[in-house]
């Protein structure tokens, strides 16, 4: 076995294991950490495919930014796991039967050498070949139309988020100093005149 193949299987095994743990773990923080591991191994597979730029982008964007944010959110939300787990055992038999059936059907259809993925050789990139340049060139020539549209999608996301969360000015209890200095005695203290009453 070639060394590269070995690395591929090694990374894939970690990837599959981590992804499995993401969905099976009880603790959401652990699940998120396993997701980080999964992303990391996936980026390793990408490096094997000589796509360094994508691999680095994956690590930077997903592991660096998205997952950290995700971890923050998970840690801040106090999710009650037991509530979520209710009814798990009663759904398990049916769910597992369905899942097993699906796996069986898929493997029947796709089984054997139909997919012949391993026969295709990936051509070696010449030395000095720049991944970033290739991605950039494709993005701004051939794929410029979907690229621009993707930016519109993001814009819609921003507009929607603002529309759904902005509720006008918040009514906070802060005071404006410029008005505060103009306050007069009469505004604050009211002197009442009352006639004295006799005690019974």
């Amino acid at each position: 076995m070639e060394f590269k193949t070995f690395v591929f299987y090694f990374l894939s095994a970690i990837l599959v294991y981590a992804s499995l743990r993401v969905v099976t773990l009880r603790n959401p923080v652990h699940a998120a950490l396993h997701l980080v591991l999964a992303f990391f191994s996936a980026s390793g597979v990408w490096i094997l495919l000589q796509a360094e730029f994508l691999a680095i982008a994956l690590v930077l964007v997903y592991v660096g930014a998205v997952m950290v944010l995700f971890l923050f959110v998970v840690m801040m939300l106090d999710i009650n796991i037991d509530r979520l787990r209710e009814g798990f055992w009663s759904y398990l038999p049916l769910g597992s039967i369905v899942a097993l059936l699906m796996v069986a059907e898929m493997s029947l259809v796709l089984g054997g050498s139909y997919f012949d993925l391993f026969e295709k050789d990936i051509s070696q990139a010449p030395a000095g070949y720049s991944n970033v340049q290739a991605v950039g060139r494709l993005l701004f020539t051939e794929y410029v139309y979907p690229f621009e549209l993707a930016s519109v999608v993001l814009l819609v996301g921003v507009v929607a988020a603002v529309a759904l969360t902005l509720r006008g000015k918040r009514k906070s209890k802060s005071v404006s100093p410029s008005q505060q200095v103009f306050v007069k005695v009469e505004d604050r203290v009211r002197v009442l005149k009352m006639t004295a009453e006799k005690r019974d």
Partner: protein
Amino acid sequence: MLAMACLILIVDLFVKDRKRTITFVLTQVTLVGAAIITFALSTGQILYTFSNMYVGDMMGDLLKLLLYLTVMVVLFYSRSYVFDRPEMAKGEFYTLTLFATLGMMVMISANHFLTVYIGIELLSLSLYAMVALNRDSIAATEAAMKYFVLGALASGLLLYGMSMIYGSTGTLEISAVAERLFNGQANKTILAFGVVFLVSGIAFKLGVVPFHMWIPDVYHGAPTAVTLFIASAPKLAAFAIVIRMLVNGLIVASQDWQSMLLILSVLSMAVGNFAAIAQTNLKRMLAYSAISHMGFMLLGMITGVVGGDARYALNAYSSSMFYVITYVLTSAGTFGMILLLARSGFESEEISDFAGLNKRSPWFAAVMMMMMFSMAGVPFFVGFFAKFSVLQAVVAAGYLWLAIAAVFFSLVGAYYYLRIVKVMYFDPPISTSRIVAPLDMKILMSANGLAVALLGIFPQTLMSLCAFSLLRSL
């Protein structure tokens, strides 16, 4: 053309004013402008630009023009409804509508699976937000949540199918996919797999059984103005992507997807029509009726290629197109009527709210009756000819039993449409207040009703337009 539309949209975004009238007028101007650009640039030839990601052809142009028209009508209808409800009277309603329209444009003229996907996302993302626009309503929030989760799932299915097709043919460009399939340079197993996922994803977006669960809840929960939008315009775009992806791209695999669509279509006609009977809420009822109508529309797609013979394809697809245009016209009118009767603080979405409409306003009752007759397929309204042409295509393709089943389910459907007519004409009115609506809305409503009636008398023009545009595009 699309870049222009995009530019106007973004300009519009910044001109957001406190006064919604300005936004409203600007939006309408944008739509008219975009429609004029589309019309002026329409050459009738098939053009590819943006490295074959974009296709402009006659079918696309026709659908786009109709789409602009529909969105304009929708905005006119929903204007006073939105105005009466301060929580919705925000510029975002118009902006999101425009973005959704842009998404539909992208879908209509997509020649690349990636573009199709991005168009769908643009449309659905705007729709999710529009459904949830009324934040204080629990029903609307719930509907938006369901729509979002199920829509994300559907997008996932669609993407999975697309990646399978890429794995099989090595390209994502729709015309190139068709070419490679025709030359037999594709892995059949993976292709079939991809087609299954693709059809599931499309079925989700169209809302046909068994992927219909979101439709009633979303129609019911969303503010009526948004429901009107969801129920009308996106159907045209959905039809376009069905044509683009399945017919333009995967016509070689038509055996596979036709049999799938057959099951989907029969099921949705059955479930849609039978479930609609039990509804008391008009919006829910119309949601189920939308499911059954989409099933009916798919009938035309099924009968395109029979045993490798594409002789009837044009007839079948154009009947489908005619059907979907008719449906959009009618459903826009029906939801418009709900909006017309709605006042601030009163939604008028129960069927009983229509009781005795004849006493309150004979003319609007008559318009509503025309809509209902057209939906039910009563002769000499446009819905009849739509159903008729689809059935003709089905019979011509040799599926006699299918035609009989379709007619049977339509008869079931006629029951609940006619029930509304009965409620309007023969039940005592619950309120005697006069109907107050802005003049433009009244005029437009009447025009919509008359269009349904007139197209019923002269359906040939639109039908031949559909057939001609498809002839030039396929």
